């Protein structure tokens, strides 16, 4: 285990060390202590390593992550795992706004609640939230899946493209062009897999969820839909 004291050695040294890890490194386990809400912790990592951050993080922790498994033993600030490409990010606490924004791959697990705009503009990432998600979540979400064990705030999935949204609790309101859709066998199978990988299979069952997706009415401009714009 490589232990890195962020308060002592600083962000630049941490990220330089993590970026230097290539391919089959033997230094596969890292621990970051004293994060104290610092920004951009472990941003841009591209190696199959495990990084445990012991405490809460500021903005953009695990930004653009590739391959790495990053565990946050606290809460995460805005934009955690933004534009993640692959790998996994698991947050024990809550996540602030824009969690998983524009993510293109990988798995983001939030064991607490996620604030507004969770999964905004997502492009393939999978997000599992054990608690609730805030307003305008999954705005313009393009692809990927979001699983919410709790409730969703206002305007869920506004201007949604092809992302799949599963919510177990209440949805305060749906955004423009977002509708409830039928749960088919492949969706139950997908949910079962996501709940398992999202460490939530002991908390919820696939049949407890509703599925939301795009009505696809805004895909090509039509003046008769102007009221929705």
């Amino acid at each position, binding site marked *: 285990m490589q232990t890195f004291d962020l308060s002592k050695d600083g962000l630049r040294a941490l990220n330089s060390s993590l970026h230097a890890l290539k391919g089959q490194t033997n230094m596969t386990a890292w621990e970051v202590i004293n994060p104290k809400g610092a*920004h*951009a912790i472990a941003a841009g990592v591209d190696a199959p390593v495990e990084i445990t951050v012991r405490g809460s993080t500021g903005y953009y922790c695990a930004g653009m992550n590739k391959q790495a498994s990053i565990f946050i033993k606290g809460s995460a600030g805005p934009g955690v795992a933004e*534009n993640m490409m692959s790998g996994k990010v698991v947050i024990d606490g809550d996540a602030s706004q824009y969690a998983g924004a524009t993510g293109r791959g990988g798995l983001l697990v939030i064991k607490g609640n996620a604030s507004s705009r969770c999964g905004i503009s997502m492009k393939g990432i999978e997000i599992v939230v054990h608690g609730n998600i805030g307003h305008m979540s999954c705005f313009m979400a393009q692809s990927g899946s979001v699983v919410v064990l709790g409730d969703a705030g206002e305007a869920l999935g506004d201007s949604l493209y092809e992302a799949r949204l599963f919510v177990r609790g209440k949805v305060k309101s749906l955004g423009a062009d977002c509708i409830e859709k039928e749960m088919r066998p492949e969706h139950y199978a997908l949910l079962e897999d996501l709940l398992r990988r999202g460490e939530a299979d002991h908390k919820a069952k696939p049949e407890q969820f509703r599925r939301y997706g795009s009505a696809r009415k805004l895909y090509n401009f039509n003046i008769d839909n102007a009221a929705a714009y």
Partner: protein
Amino acid sequence: MSDFPHTPPKMSWTFSNDVNAEIRRAAATGIYDIRGGGSKRRLPHFDDLLFLGASISRYPLEGYREKCATDVWLGTRFAKNPIHLDIPITIAGMSFGALSGPAKEALGRGASAAGTSTTTGDGGMTEEERGHSKSLVYQYLPSRYGMNPDDLRRADAIEVVVGQGAKPGGGGMLLGQKISDRVANMRNLPKGIDQRSACRHPDWTGPDDLEIKILEIREITNWEKPIYIKIGGARPYYDTALAVKAGADVVVLDGMQGGTAATQDVFIENVGMPILACIPLAVKALQDLGMHRKVQLIVSGGIRTGADVAKAMALGADAVAIGTAALIALGDNDPALEAEYNKLGTTAGAYDDWHEGRDPAGITTQNPELAARFDPVLGGRRLKNYLKVMTLEAQTIARACGKNHLHNLEPEDLCALTIEGAAMAGVPLAGTNWIPGRNGGF
């Protein structure tokens, strides 16, 4: 009919033929007019300025003999690897999607041959462009289409796009006709849908967030790449100051003449300011912060000639960027294609339906047959020639003003032909020492 003279038919200035035609078009179609390009208004512009040249109190440099340097360093504030360009005329961001792959290749070829940079756009980085561009600026846009850390690290600089001159406050638009399989794949979108790029970034709002976003990008790229911030010509004094505060190495300022691939005509013509009005305010912001020449300023929007380049630089810019002019150099709107433009209901010089993807020049299209008409090698050569001519023109003027580097041009070398030009540029009206608005604030 009476023999008395009567009032001849009188057209309304307010309800002109053009205005009435647009009302009828809107009534018939139920949709606003969408087009490419920048403002077509007659705006105060560099044409309103003149250089004074040398005289008894200033002595000139000999053309073709005495050196007038043109190079520029971009990104010297924080980046480990600032960019050094031979000429201060860069190629502005234009997306693959809006432009064909061969057109992007030609931009890279031409820019590299002329010793300058080109820029990606709202569609990610293509191999055509990366492979043929010695210096490539990678745009970081609200849509984040195709965004990934590998391309960030392959770029020579990163441009965080906050706004653009054609539509400050607006997002991008690429209509379904141009969403081919390849474009759809790069953008993670279904083929054939109308694609809207968001007007705001998804994971930051305001200058304090932007500072942290830039920190993240610098961390991901190991502080090697210059970070540009591109703003539309809206509030250039404050936006420039905030960009500097947020940590920009370079500010890119785009006036309302700057082109877009597709946006509402009403937006293009009614939002934003002409570049002439923007430059002095941005320069003043940099000067007030003690950052002029430390944070470089690139300006764009209607740059056409070496004279425009020289005037922009005399007002304090470090470099310029061209977009529309580069497309024209490649062959866009060429009168040789007049018959085909006529078939599209337009004429060479006025064609702006770039979003429809039917460009007979094969530049603003994703139609493989049309794109195949365009020769990227020839296009690149034409762009190189044009950039070289612009540079020679700017040098000619700078020597006439006695300057051994384009950066040594200054507002004192200029006068204005119009009161508007004098007020906006902050230089005297020709034949007077009057600068409207001076001593009265701005």
